[in-house]
């Protein structure tokens, strides 16, 4: 177990930032902490990185307690805070050297590791430049390189792609994905597509509470059922209708006409089974024509919006 958080609570001057949360992260996972602004993501990360303590509850990183064994924990994590603060007056290589030495690396090891992270994060061209003059994308890479320089077991990144342009987001995202092969990564974000693309598991938070913590597939399954099927079949309309009505797995269906003999059907399954093979078999059996058969999954966005919608907005069931 890399991260084990149980019943963690943190209040700031009477305001509860994190309320009694518990979650686990296994070694080698990339986990996304997802939630609207003010959900308690940053606070959770600050507690895990030993910057502030919680009011109650426990948290351990690789078996070390973040409150009582903070030094051991700090040695094992690479943390990049929100907005990625750096010393703008320093040069890239100099800054990374400074950080590596601060994190207790020996002289030889520092040289080795600084070279390694500069290559890993694609900073070769700018290693002698002053950080303050770099573009935001490069600065973000410097922040990542800093988080990696001491080869931490766990990397905690708070909003790593905030304020970047799409191509920069893409390269940072790729970097995080690559990191996931060798490290455990915890990233926070409110950009869904990012989490969807990089993380194997998500923890969804709102107003200091955890709403869901599961793998993406499970979340889709539980919250979005299995989505629905879209298919276009050329068949007589009434025959099609009777066939669908005789299928017990179908909750309901809609049929609309398209050009030619084709009918566009939207099928909602009642269970979580995948009905595509079943539909295909039906078409073959009847000798109809089929030109489209696809499953529309609920996107994470729908799942997220449904979960994080304030209670007052929830429609009555």
């Amino acid at each position: 177990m890399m991260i084990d958080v149980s019943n963690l609570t943190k209040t700031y001057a009477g305001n509860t930032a994190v309320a009694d949360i518990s979650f686990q992260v296994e070694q080698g996972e990339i986990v996304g902490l997802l939630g609207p602004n003010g959900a308690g993501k940053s606070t959770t990360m600050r507690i895990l990185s030993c910057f502030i303590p919680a009011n109650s509850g426990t948290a351990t990183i690789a078996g070390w307690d973040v409150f009582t064994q903070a030094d051991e924990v700090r040695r094992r994590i690479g943390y990049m805070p929100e907005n990625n603060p750096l010393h703008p007056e320093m040069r890239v290589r100099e800054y990374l050297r400074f950080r590596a030495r601060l994190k207790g690396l020996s002289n030889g090891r520092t040289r080795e590791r600084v070279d390694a992270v500069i290559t890993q994060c694609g900073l070769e061209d700018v290693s002698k430049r002053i950080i303050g003059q770099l573009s935001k994308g490069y600065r973000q890479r410097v922040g990542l390189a800093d988080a990696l320089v001491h080869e931490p077991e766990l990397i905690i990144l708070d909003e790593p792609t905030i304020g970047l342009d799409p191509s920069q987001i893409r390269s940072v995202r790729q970097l995080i994905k690559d990191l996931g092969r060798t490290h455990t990564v915890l990233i926070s974000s409110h950009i869904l597509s990012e989490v969807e693309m990089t993380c194997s598991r998500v923890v969804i938070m709102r107003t200091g509470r955890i709403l869901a913590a599961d793998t993406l597939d499970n979340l889709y399954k539980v919250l979005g059922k299995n989505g629905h099927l879209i298919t276009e079949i050329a068949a007589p309309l009434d025959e099609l209708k009777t066939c669908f009505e005789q299928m017990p797995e179908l909750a309901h269906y809609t049929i609309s006409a398209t050009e030619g003999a084709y009918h566009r059907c939207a099928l909602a399954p009642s269970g979580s089974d995948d009905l595509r093979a079943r539909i295909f078999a039906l078409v073959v059996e009847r000798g109809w024509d089929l030109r489209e058969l696809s499953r529309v999954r609920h996107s994470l966005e729908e799942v997220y919006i449904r979960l994080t919608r304030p209670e007052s907005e929830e429609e009555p069931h």
Partner: protein
Amino acid sequence: MQAYITLARREMGSFFYSWIAYVVIAGAMLLTGMGFVTLLDRLQGEPTPMPLTEIFLGGCFWLIVLFSAPVITMRLFAVERHSGTFETLMTTPVSDWQVVLAKFTAAIVFYMLMWLPLLACVLVLRYCAHDATLFDPRTLGTTYLGIFLTGCLYMAVGCFASALTHNQIVAAMISFAIGLAFFLAGFMDGPIDLQGTWAGRAFSYVSVLAQMKDYARGVVDTRSVVFCLTSSFFFLFLSCRVIESRRWR
């Protein structure tokens, strides 16, 4: 230890990355130079039993200390808090004491560098005047000891002020106010009817003004050594507590 040295070196470097170091050194050199001119003027007048350093101290010494200390120390914590690097710093395996001591060390080393031109002034005088009595290495030593100890106190006060706030200007104002209070305590035992009372004795004990005069005269009073060291320690301790306060606030 490694973290302490690394941090102190970076702090030292950051003085010179910003314009502060050059502005402060230039200002201090200007004032030292003016003090030197006054000194030469005095030496041409009537003979006096005062050592060289004491005459110099009558000039711009306090002006330099009172104004340079807040400027040197105001960035120490305030900038890191403002930019957020404080968070990256405090999530590395370093202790609060290491951070405070490293920043204090950098400040005091820089402060001592600022006083090197004074040494040059004295050496120039000795070289030109060809008068051995003019220059007593022991008095010069105690003067520098005094400069160092006073510096410790003022840098520690500055550290504390900077730890209190995100804003450099506010930090500078707080440290100037506390520093000025120590300086003015020197004037409190005389003119007002405090002479001989416990309050008068208390003021004279904390009077850095009178203490510095002793050092420049070549007198090392252990009371003032103890006072400077303990009060520096006290303010560093306070800085440490302020930094730690994020944990229980």
